[in-house]
């Protein structure tokens, strides 16, 4: 079926591209406000120590330094947006008060005329720390007095009868996997411009954020301002990938400082800050066991997971997003009814943990698929076949996993079968050269998509309201403007949301504009652009609002033509009567008449050609299968990815070009995540990956052309059948590559246990067993 150009399903080029390609994007560092000063933070150089004193005198005396602020200069701020009733809260001040808990934590802030001066001054702020409070002998002081064991969260659940299943099993396999800390590392770091107007008591904040309304809520609460007095402005965001979901303490500090000194302030972090002080992700130790019966069916699954929280349980991103979600996600697309997990999340003297694309799911997927491969190896069984007989096949749908994920639809087996075919078609016949070990990995997965309140409930097992609203308005020129509160952080919402509106309104794509505004104008997005949700949730809200506006247009046209609304249709901006060839009116004529002709106005049913609607979709799940082929160089331990094959099903694709782009981009991130990205700390918890020479990102040299196909089955659950897939390339591909490396190493591969499978890990295994 061919889609109409410029509507849902069209592979059209992006509306935002001309702006971004010509240097006219507006990122937070491009914002200039008259009278603006620059902020540089003084950050802790120690991981855990009491702050004995902070001497700012020399720094404050430099020319062009406006102020140097320490914790006591800012109001006592409480920010607590706990999302699970049982996670222990760790108070965190915007500037460390009393003690520093990780290297990189902000201790003081310099405000100066320009960033050069601000950094000069930051260097001469004299902070005296106590002796380290952490000792290797285990006599460390806890990070917080009220949490003596440093455990901020613990949860154990059991579904079905896992113990009995394991006792009766024909085979039990086990796998241990540690996942290094990684950084989302958007090329644009974090930053904000805060401008407080003391006369109006009004705070305007420009921020590189994924969740403007949530940032407004957090800022208002922390600074004790009414929410309507805080405005967060939306503009271009230079990559985010989850790191920009949380409200950052620096954003609160900069806003509080602007209120204190009454000047607009700008903070743009540098890469060292981004790599050390911005939240990291992953950081888990997982032990999983799988029980199989005589027919090789998965009869039981158990997991013990220890998650790293970093120095704070985090105030809006929360460490739960990693280990806890891993625990809830482990059964995945497989039919396993007996499952138990025990998850514990501990404080460490490192930067806090927050989301990064595929948060929690990446770890679950990697651990589970490596475990399944281990079972296949021990059984001498084909790895596709072992998965095929255990996946939730279409005959079992609808299916609810033991942790409560409800799959109403899905193509788990179909996508696996197709990946196997594509893999076989592309097989090169040549023999392996010496020292080159080839491995194949396969990874079928399911992704909670378009998370609304029900999806949030199913994923987390707790109530987490999440929905979006959108506004559509048609002007007298017959053109539509769409606004919503989910910023585009690269996924092209300016294009896809215009496609949805154009499709529903019957307008040409170029007659619809997405307008980026601010939290005072944009309809509310409760939780922002995250969790593969904007296409589904914002898209659904746009579709609903557009439907309302379409009806208003048709009602006025009906009055003008004296023809029943049901007999009218809009296509390409023109209104026709059913059965007639020539359109009667244009949308512009109708809207103009609606505004200017008083006779057409109707008391009690005023038509503003504008509507705002909210969408809170039912839970939906997209799925895909990814295979990877890798080549291991036995001499160096280096791994090169040779092929990535993906077949995915995200329901209706609004724009297949963008769907491909999301998947391929995430798959590249997965190459880094599986093979080399690693935030490292040295002795005394000093970060040693503070530049992009140390924290390695994939380049054109490590990435490959992704062989991609789609199974497009519109969802029966969501508006327009759309499902989300922004994270899927990451979730599936890390596991596929990990399994491929293990496969290349043969029996030795079973011992791989620390992701990323970096050259040293692989080489050590090959050479020392």
């Amino acid at each position: 079926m061919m889609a109409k150009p410029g509507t849902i399903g069209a592979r059209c080029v992006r509306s935002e591209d001309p702006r971004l390609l010509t240097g006219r994007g507006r990122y937070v560092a491009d914002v200039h406000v008259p009278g603006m000063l620059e902020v540089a933070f003084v950050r802790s150089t120690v991981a855990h120590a009491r702050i004995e004193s902070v001497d700012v005198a020399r720094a404050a005396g430099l020319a062009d330094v406006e102020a140097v602020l320490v914790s006591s200069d800012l109001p006592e701020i409480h920010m607590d947006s706990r999302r699970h009733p049982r996670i222990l809260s760790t108070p965190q001040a915007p500037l460390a008060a009393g003690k520093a808990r990780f290297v990189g934590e902000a201790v003081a802030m310099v405000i100066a005329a320009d960033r050069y001066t601000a950094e000069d001054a930051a260097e001469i702020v004299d902070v005296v720390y106590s002796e380290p409070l952490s000792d290797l002998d285990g006599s460390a002081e806890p990070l917080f007095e009220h949490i003596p064991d440093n455990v901020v969260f613990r949860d154990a659940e059991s579904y079905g009868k896992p113990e009995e299943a394991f006792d009766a099993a024909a085979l039990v396999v086990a796998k241990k996997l540690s996942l290094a800390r990684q950084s989302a590392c958007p090329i644009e770091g974090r930053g904000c411009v805060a401008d407080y107007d003391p006369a109006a008591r009004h705070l305007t904040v420009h921020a590189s954020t994924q969740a403007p309304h949530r940032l407004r809520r957090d800022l208002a609460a922390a600074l004790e301002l009414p929410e309507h007095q805080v405005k967060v402005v939306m503009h271009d965001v230079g990559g985010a990938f989850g790191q920009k979901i949380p409200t950052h303490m620096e954003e609160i500090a900069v806003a509080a400082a602007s209120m204190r000194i009454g000047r607009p302030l700008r903070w743009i972090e540098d890469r060292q800050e981004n790599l050390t002080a911005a939240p990291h992700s992953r950081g888990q130790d997982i032990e999983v066991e799988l029980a199989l019966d005589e027919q090789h069916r998965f009869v039981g699954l158990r997991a013990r997971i220890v998650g790293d929280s970093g120095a704070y349980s985090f105030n809006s991103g929360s460490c739960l997003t990693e280990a806890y979600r891993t625990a809830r996600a482990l059964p995945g697309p497989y039919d396993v009814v007996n499952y138990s997990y025990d998850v514990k999340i501990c404080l460490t003297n490192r930067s806090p943990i927050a989301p990064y694309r595929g948060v929690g799911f990446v770890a679950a997927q990697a651990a589970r698929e490596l475990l399944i491969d281990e079972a296949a190896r021990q059984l001498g069984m084909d790895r596709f076949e072992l998965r095929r007989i255990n996946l939730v096949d279409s005959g079992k749908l609808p299916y609810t996993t033991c942790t409560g994920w409800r799959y109403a639809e899905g193509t788990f087996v179909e996508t696996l079968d197709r990946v196997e075919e594509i893999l076989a078609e592309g097989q090169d016949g040549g023999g392996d050269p010496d020292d080159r070990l080839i491995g194949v990995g396969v990874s079928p997965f399911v992704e909670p998509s378009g998370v609304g309140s029900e999806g949030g409930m199913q994923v987390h097992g707790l109530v987490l309201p999440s929905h979006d609203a959108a506004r559509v308005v048609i002007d007298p020129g017959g053109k539509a403007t769409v606004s919503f509160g989910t910023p585009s952080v690269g996924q092209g919402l300016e294009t896809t949301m215009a496609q949805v509106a154009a499709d529903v309104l019957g307008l040409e794509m170029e007659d619809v504009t997405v307008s980026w505004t601010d939290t005072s104008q944009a309809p509310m997005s409760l939780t922002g652009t995250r969790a593969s949700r904007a296409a589904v949730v914002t898209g659904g809200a746009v579709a609903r609002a557009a439907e309302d506006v379409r009806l208003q247009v048709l009602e006025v046209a009906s009055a003008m033509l004296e023809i029943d609304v049901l007999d009218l249709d809009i296509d390409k901006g023109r209104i026709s009567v059913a059965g007639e060839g020539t359109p009667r009116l244009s949308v512009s004529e109708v809207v103009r008449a609606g505004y200017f002709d008083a006779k057409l106005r109707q008391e009690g049913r005023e038509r503003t050609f504008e509507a705002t609607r909210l969408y809170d979709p039912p839970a939906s799940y997209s799925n895909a299968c990814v295979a990877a082929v890798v080549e291991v160089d036995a001499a160096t331990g280096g791994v090169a990815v040779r092929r990535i094959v993906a077949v995915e099903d995200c329901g209706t694709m609004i724009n297949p070009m963008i769907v491909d782009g999301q998947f391929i981009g995430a798959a590249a991130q997965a190459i880094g995540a599986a093979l080399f990205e690693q935030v490292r700390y040295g002795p005394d918890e000093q970060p040693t990956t503070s530049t992009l020479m140390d924290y390695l990102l994939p380049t054109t040299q490590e990435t490959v052309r992704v062989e991609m196909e789609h199974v497009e089955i519109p969802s029966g659950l969501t508006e327009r059948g759309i499902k989300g897939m922004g994270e899927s390339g990451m979730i599936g591909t890390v596991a596929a590559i990990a399994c491929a490396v293990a496969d290349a190493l043969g029996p030795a591969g079973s011992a791989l246990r620390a992701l990323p499978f970096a050259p040293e890990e692989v080489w050590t295994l090959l050479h020392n067993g």
Partner: protein
Amino acid sequence: MTDAAEMADVEVQVNGRRVRRRVTVRMTAADFLRDVLGLRGTHLGCEHGVCGACTIVVDGVAVRSCLLYAPQLDGRSVLTVEGLQSPTGELHPLQAAFMKHHGLQCGFCTSGFLLSAFELLSEERGLTEESVREGLSGNLCRCTGYQGIVDAVLEADRAWER
């Protein structure tokens, strides 16, 4: 720090226009372009010469503007992303190809890729995928996985009459 206030004159041709400014000697070329000239299409991703987001072309050579000081531009000719479009507003063949092949998502690294590719295509013709990948290996993109970028540069190689 004693040099922090030292000033120098910079006279430079930027996107075909001659400009003359007095700046502190420690100001980077990137900050000069962005903050002094207001050309904010040049973006800073790492400020230590790895990511390539701030790439500009100086006398035909792609360089990292975060690693150059503004006075080093004196007497030179600079091309930034703002200078790629034709005077009549038409996209450069590279820009058009990036759009067609979805060679950008968030757009933050894009200027650097365009200018690295500009240098690459200025020097060579008839590139293979491998040589494009090699030529762009010094620029980081976190969004696209590079596939669209590589396809765009291959297309621009054919489309750009030069």
